[in-house]
């Protein structure tokens, strides 16, 4: 429990039993939990309290999850992690495209949730600084000079491969939906041609070599470039340890 004031995590869920265990768990991890049972309440608290992260349940009684996201995005760039009992990919993709940063499926593990919260908060910090060079694990992506290095060795990438890597790097740690990648790189007409992506991601993974493991597939949703800060917060680290992300 270090730092001046604990960061606020807003939990928007209509199931009281979720709050009953998330409250103590978040508090123990060093955050200040904020509870909302409807979307309206959640939006009000998000505006009033400026949380560091929002956990949003998609099955809310008063408002569609996507609509709540759109309204939130109108005034805030706060990282949003979607929590849903429904494991339907289409819904997740829609939420991500509507501005969510990440998602977890119910029933989720607490450690995993806390790791996602940390990653999202860190990304938010970095976004503010607009870094031209991303470092994650052995991979270094220089967006300004269009250069990628793995352990110091420059990679030879085709223009498409570069665009793919750059898009993932800009949102490192975040899930980028397949549709978004396809639309941005291949154009609107090809947004359903997921086999392009599979082929290019495969090629890119090969060229990345030992950094290939950082390029994760989120089945049915999209891809994610893991943001590793010298490997310090991977895996099942204790939620109590290092609650505050260290800027890279």
């Amino acid at each position: 429990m270090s730092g001046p004031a604990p960061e606020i995590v807003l939990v928007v869920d209509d199931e009281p039993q979720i709050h009953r265990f998330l409250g103590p768990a978040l508090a123990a991890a060093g955050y200040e939990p904020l509870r909302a049972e409807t979307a309206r309440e959640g939006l009000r608290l998000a505006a009033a309290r400026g949380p560091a992260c929002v956990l949003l349940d998609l099955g809310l009684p008063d408002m569609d999850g996507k609509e709540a996201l759109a309204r939130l995005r109108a005034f805030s760039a706060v990282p949003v992690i979607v929590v849903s009992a429904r494991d339907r990919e289409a819904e997740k993709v829609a939420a991500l495209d509507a501005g969510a940063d990440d998602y977890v499926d119910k029933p989720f593990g607490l450690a995993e949730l806390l790791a996602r919260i940390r990653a999202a908060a860190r990304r938010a910090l970095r976004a503010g600084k607009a870094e031209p060079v991303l470092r994650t694990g052995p991979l270094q992506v220089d967006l300004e000079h269009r250069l990628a290095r793995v352990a110091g060795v420059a990679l030879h990438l085709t223009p498409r491969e570069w665009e793919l890597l750059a898009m993932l790097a800009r949102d490192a740690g975040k899930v980028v939906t397949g549709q978004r990648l396809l639309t941005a790189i291949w154009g609107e007409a090809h947004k359903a041609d997921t086999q392009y992506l599979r082929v290019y991601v495969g090629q890119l993974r090969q060229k990345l070599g030992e950094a290939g493991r950082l390029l994760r597939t989120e089945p049915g949703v999209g891809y994610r470039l893991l943001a590793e800060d010298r490997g310090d917060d991977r895996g099942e680290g204790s939620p109590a340890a290092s609650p505050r992300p260290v800027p890279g």
Partner: protein
Amino acid sequence: MTEPPRPDPDALLALAAEGRGRLKVFLGAAPGVGKTVQMLAEGRRLLAAGTDVLVGLVETHGRAETEAAIGPLPVLPRRAVPYRGQALAEFDLDAALARRPAVLLLDELAHSNAPGSRHPKRWQDVEELRDAGIEVWTTMNVQHLEGLSDTVARVTGIRVAETVPDRVLREADAVALVDIPPAELLERLRQGRIYRPDQAERALRGFFREGSLAALREMALRRTAERVDADVTGWMRRNAVAGPWPVGDRVLVLIPGGAEAEAVLHHARRIADALRAPLLALHVERPGGTGDPAPGLRLAEDLGAEAEVVAAADLPAAVLAHARARNVSHIVLGRGRPARWRRLLGRTLIGALARRAADFTLHVVAGPPPATRRPAAPRRALPGWLGLAAVPALVAAATLVCLGLDGTVPDASFGMVYLVAVVALAAWLGPAHAAAGAALSFAAWNFLFLPPRYTLVIASAQDVLGAVVFGVVAALLSGTTGRLGRSVRAAAARLAALRRLSALARRLNAQSSMPELQGAIAEAARQAAGCPACLLLPLDAALQSVFGADLAPPDAPPGASGPPEPVLRAASPADAVPDEAAMAAARWALANGREAGRGTATLPATPWRFLPLRAAREEGEAVIGLLGLLPGQAGRGMDDPEADRTLDALLDQAAVALERARLAELGARRRARGEAEALRTALLTSLGHDLRTPLTAIRGAAETLRTVGAALPEATRADLLATVEEEATRLARWMTAIIDMVRLESGELQARREPVDPAGALREAAARAGHAYPGRAVRVAAPPGLPAPMLDPVLLDRVLENLLDNALKYSGPSGTVLAEARREGAWVSFSVEDDGPGIPPAALPQVFAPFFRAARADRVAAGSGLGLAICRGLVTAMGGTIAAESPVRDGHGTRVTARFPA
């Protein structure tokens, strides 16, 4: 001498269109001309060219020449048929069908099969082979043609028993004439190359007289020539070559009732053939008409005529109207046996037609030779002796009346009394009896009452006038009354038939379930035919209605895999069950869509007769079942035309009713499948949500306790543990609900029946509900002395628990719940009422649907969405009803009431 086998484009087209095998007939004038040898020689040529030729059966008659002609051709083994202690070697139809050669050679088309075979005649075997797509070559002598049998009998003095319908030859794709001059044939016969010497001797006295042979040869030549001519004309027409063929000739033959029909029809067929004109056949049904037209109609169809029956009183007018309507040019009719007076007055049909049918050619056919004339069967309802006895009896009665009145009225008025007797005879027994009665009456009156009495002399001119007037009036009255009586009887019979039909339609429409309908059809068939009847359906359809499950895909065409198997579905009386032998006929009838069994061309030795039920389906007309009839020894129900008509109508109506029931069942099953589908979807959604939320809470609470539990305050730890416990309970409840729902849906739930105290049950459930929601009270109102309905106490408790739980959940933390048991007439009702927000009227009808949830604006954790659906299922299983009302208290609140028979 023979025409080479040539492709007939029409036949080829027909072959491509319906897959029917070609037929080639080797036609000869007499035995021994070399038909079989010729056929075998051509078969060998075809075999050498690589075609799959098979000899189905060849009669060598011990002739070495024929034996040698078989040569390398494969021969199908014959089938041994036991018949009266000896084994007959017959053609094996099933083996031929199974072997499926390209061309099958089958000798002697006119052959009659051994009794017990599938078809009585070989030409019927050939039809089936052709239906199966096998090309058949066969041989035949011209005297076996049905249409020539009269002529042949006249020429040779021998009536041929084995005949082949003319249409078989007419429909043949090729006819090859095998011809040698009569002198040469006789020479061969004398050399013993045709028959053994003893048979040859007999043959020389019969067929093989030179004159007979010449006549037969001429017939064969002419038949073939007509065919060739028809082929050429057909070819010219197809190719639009202008030519001198007769245009629009149509021959109409009048089918008389009785024995004359045969000769008339054969003659008409020959005329139509000679004119190459289509043949139409007409039977006019008249009040009092004599003779059964059914055999004539059947023969007409066998001869390829288009047969029709019309009902009319004025025979000539009906004939002319029909002839004009059908654009007929020739009318063929028999001489008939009109009454002498008609002949004298020229009032015969022939006379009338001759006068009125100036635009038609009339052909009057000679009557059949007297030897073949059969006496017309008496068709009176009353026995003949009764009619004969009635005449003197009525006259005697009239005489007695007159004797009683003698002296009180003038003698001349006795005529009136006798008139009554004559009119009565005319009305009941017809004009002949009336005439006899009139004569007898006149004699009695004259003898007993007209002066001078006890003589047959009439003295006064006044009495003579009276007698003449009596005669004229009696004649007129008897004629008119007789006709009237017949018309009335015919009308009554028709009315009765109509009534039977509409009763049948009503009965079939009234059946709600498939088994009931099937039973009603069998019952109706028994009544209509007057003999035991049964209903058979193809196996797949039967299975579907027996198990109600999709053992076979419902949309698959029947018999997609193998021939359909008929299964007995209903019998009337119940023991009218066809045996295995009869089922063979049923199978054939179902597979071929034609009648089989007794009185038909297929397996006629079977006691049962099977009639196909046809219905229109998307894929075309289909045979959907069979009606089986077991006619008695007398054959009642087979040849009665009125019963036939009723049976025909029954077949149509039964098929329609069965088809409708099948469609209704299909629809119901599709609907049920749709509902099951909706339930599955809802179940999946529920699994997604209701299973995961408690699991998430349990997992999260446990994980928090494990990882940071030590650092948490005591109260928080207790709350997390409570969360785990409560969520586990919730999961268990939810699972019970799902299992209940599945059991209800599958109909597995069985309700017990025992008297239940309504007040006690309600109090118990309310107490438990109050415990589950601490701080909430349920008010119970149950008057004493309620009757104890027969219910399942466990299921009732489940219903009440669900209703109370719902009410407590939706009425909010401060809401009140009222549970009430009441008597409502013959019902006992349980109602649970809350003062929550209520249910919107639009949503009210759906509250009992699975997974329906009211809006959760009250922020209370909702249940599984199955509660009310389960309640409805349980209440229905116990014979009760359930309903919801909202709002119940000034704009809010919900009341759910379950009612059970007290």
